[in-house]
């Protein structure tokens, strides 16, 4: 015991010493950001948003205190915090989360010159948030099992017997739900329900997220999957495009399969006067940030006339269905449908 107690003491002392060095200096209690700085709640990871925030600080001198988390948890946290939230800006991975936070009365109205920069199809209808980037729905497939012309560019045929057990979806994922909403609105409620029921009967494989589906296709565990295009580009950037088994097929122009999901940002209610926060959101739809999104995260810029990521069809050519992705009432109907067919 004597030896082990000494051992324990040494480790504990070293830990406390290390922790003393490692403790961050930033971060005070709620809402006390010093002037010329603001608090950002980012529902997208630091790997993607960190470099952008750094560019903003270098250019403007404004310090950004950023908290990173996953969009869903962060939206729930914002709603739990209510008016006591330390955050000034919420950056979200999907429109539904922004819609939920706005619906709870927690977002302020953005200036028209900010929201006006973006194609009105891809931003909020009431100015409570602004669309920042777009992600196209694609069908990824295992290129060692399938040739491009064997893969449909629409989801309709995936309920045929030849695809039994070979298709992967992420039914709890916001982007899949947005796609189902698009399906409901373009094909009608009955057709959407019929397709989902048939898909489930066809032994569809359910995954937690887009990344898991891509990983499964890329390792040969799954033949085709419904994801957003940018996950493929991310994987290509890390592993090399030539080494990927998974390849992409973009949706047929004009169909629900060509839906474009958006990410966006809003300013919290009561923080309208925060000049630093306002400047950040305006900067995000500016040229430099938009270029970053296109070249570094391989997403679509939503500014009319902007070029898309290299190797992807232009946004205008996709002609995705025009639906309000932050419309909670519509999202609720989608969820009810997914519950009814037993996918969530």
């Amino acid at each position: 015991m004597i030896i082990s107690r000494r051992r324990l003491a040494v480790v504990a002392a070293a830990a406390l010493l290390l922790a003393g060095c490692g403790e961050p200096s930033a971060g005070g209690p709620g809402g006390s950001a010093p002037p010329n700085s603001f608090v950002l709640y980012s529902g997208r990871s630091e790997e993607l948003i960190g470099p952008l925030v750094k560019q903003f600080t270098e250019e403007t001198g404004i310090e950004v205190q950023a908290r990173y988390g996953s969009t869903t948890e962060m939206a729930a946290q914002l709603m739990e915090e209510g008016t006591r939230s330390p955050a000034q800006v919420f950056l979200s991975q999907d429109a539904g989360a922004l819609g939920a936070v706005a619906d709870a009365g927690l977002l302020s109205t953005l200036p028209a010159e900010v929201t006006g920069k973006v194609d009105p199809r891809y931003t909020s209808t009431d100015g409570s948030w602004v669309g920042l980037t777009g992600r196209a729905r694609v069908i990824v497939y295992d290129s060692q099992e399938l040739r491009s012309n064997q893969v449909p560019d629409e989801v309709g045929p995936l309920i045929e017997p030849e695809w039994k057990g070979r298709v992967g979806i992420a039914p709890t994922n916001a982007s899949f739900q947005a796609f189902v909403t698009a399906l409901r609105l373009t094909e009608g409620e009955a057709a959407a329900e019929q397709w989902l029921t048939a898909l489930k009967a066809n032994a569809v494989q359910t995954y937690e997220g887009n990344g898991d589906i891509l990983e499964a296709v890329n390792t040969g565990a799954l033949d085709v999957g419904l994801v957003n295009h940018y996950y493929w580009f991310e994987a290509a950037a890390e592993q090399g495009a030539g080494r990927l088994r998974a390849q992409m097929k973009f949706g047929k122009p004009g169909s629900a399969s060509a839906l474009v999901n958006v990410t966006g940002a809003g300013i919290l209610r009561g923080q309208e006067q925060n000049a630093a926060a306002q400047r950040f959101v305006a900067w995000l739809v500016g040229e430099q940030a938009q270029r970053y999104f296109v070249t570094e995260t391989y997403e679509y810029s939503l500014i009319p006339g902007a070029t898309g990521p290299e190797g992807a069809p232009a946004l205008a050519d996709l002609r995705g269905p025009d639906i309000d992705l932050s419309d909670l009432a519509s999202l609720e109907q989608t969820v009810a449908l997914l519950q009814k067919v037993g996918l969530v």
Partner: protein
Amino acid sequence: MSNPSVESPAAGRPGTRPPAWLVALAAPVTAICAIPLVYLAVRAFSGGPAALERWLFRSRTLELTGRTLLLTAVVVVGCLLLGTATAWAITRISLPASRLWPVLAALPLAVPSYVSAFAWLATWPAINGLAPLALIMILACTPYVTLPVAAALRMSDARIDDVARLLGAGRRRLFTTVTLPHIAPAAAVGGLLAALYTIADFGAPAMLRYQVLTYAIRASYLVSFDRQAAAALAVVLVLIAVVLTMAERQARRGVAGRQVAVRARRPGLRRVSRPQTALVAAGLSLVAAASVALPLVALLRRLWLGTGSDPDWGRLLASSASTLGLGVGAALVTAVLALPLAALVAHYPGRLAGALEGVAYLGHGLPGIVVGLSLVFFTLAVTPALYQTALALIFAYTVLFLPKSLGASRSALQAVSPGLAPVARTLGRSRPVAFVSVTARLAWPGIAAGALLVMVTAMKELPATLMLRPIGSNTLATELWDRTAVARYGAAAPYAVALVVVAALPAWLLSDRSGRAEP
């Protein structure tokens, strides 16, 4: 839980009224653990029965509850068998490199189940469903059983075995009539911790695509940002936790809590034949390879395959340091807070102690997202100035992991003769002073083991850490998440390896106080 064999002046007999000061210290501890439960009640029942109906009373909830129960049953049985066998092997059989095996047996604690799940999938992409998930969870949770059972085996009195043998008991009879009752309370606590971990886990079941209740809880946040629905589903988990806690108590009851005799003869190591020794060593190595080596190798392979740049050593060091610091902080605060409740349960068993202990365990079966949100709610309501500070995060770890410390401290305190503290009091010490200077001091190894268990678990915690960490600071778990969230598994690998290495520290210390024979 009675101690009929002990002549004790006051404490130890059921029905003895506990001193007021102890109750006054213990009750707030239970209150702290009950914060998530209060939050759940507020959220689940605030909006009327509509959401409850929509999410709770449907066949899908029943189906997910069934799957949760099935998974839990398989994991608990697996952990009890593997954990007891491992504990027996490392404490009773003479093996070469005797100090290595206890460490290997504790090391799986350092590997988060979501990391193992990822590694297994990276190695065998096609696996999914109950069988591989249960295997991964069993490997991850077995140390919860191995550690307390090994400690109990090490503290057993060989003279009792001798008596049984004199009375003609064979080896098997000896095991079932003497050894098993002796280790049963320890095994039950370990099984309970494994079960609560299993019902609350989200990451590994999600990755292996076996849908359980935590899946539906997260789904209800995801699909409609409906905190009420999520709370309603979490209530089901609380009910399961109630049943599990009562089952554990049942397993403990009937088995007399035994004090460690001061002059007990510790059991010696049994020498077995060479092939048998090799077989035991191979089995222990196989388990360690599957639970620790495989995840590490799979991650390093991913790092090797990636085209990403070198890891950022500064970030790696900074997040390792804050992980370690938060872990030590959580361990100390939790162990101290758990002590009065553990003492109450150990020395004054009865209805009051039982109720306070039971409630303290219930929140342990809740997923991190629910506990995290409850603490967002609580901190902002009570001490908004501390919101998102290291202090509030450590408090969150205490709420999450106090039961881990409670079980170990309670067993250790039970093993100290309650007659000793009154002796100290005759020497003029006050009751609290006598408790700290005599009882707690003697129970120190168990209390420290509980603290280390809290430390190793807190280091791996993710959902509450994401919500409550000070802005701008990172732990190894959050850094790991940040990269896997965008499928940069290669870039995530160094953080995963660092997490396993840092968490191996408390795991190594834990093995030290459970497996090795006394010097």
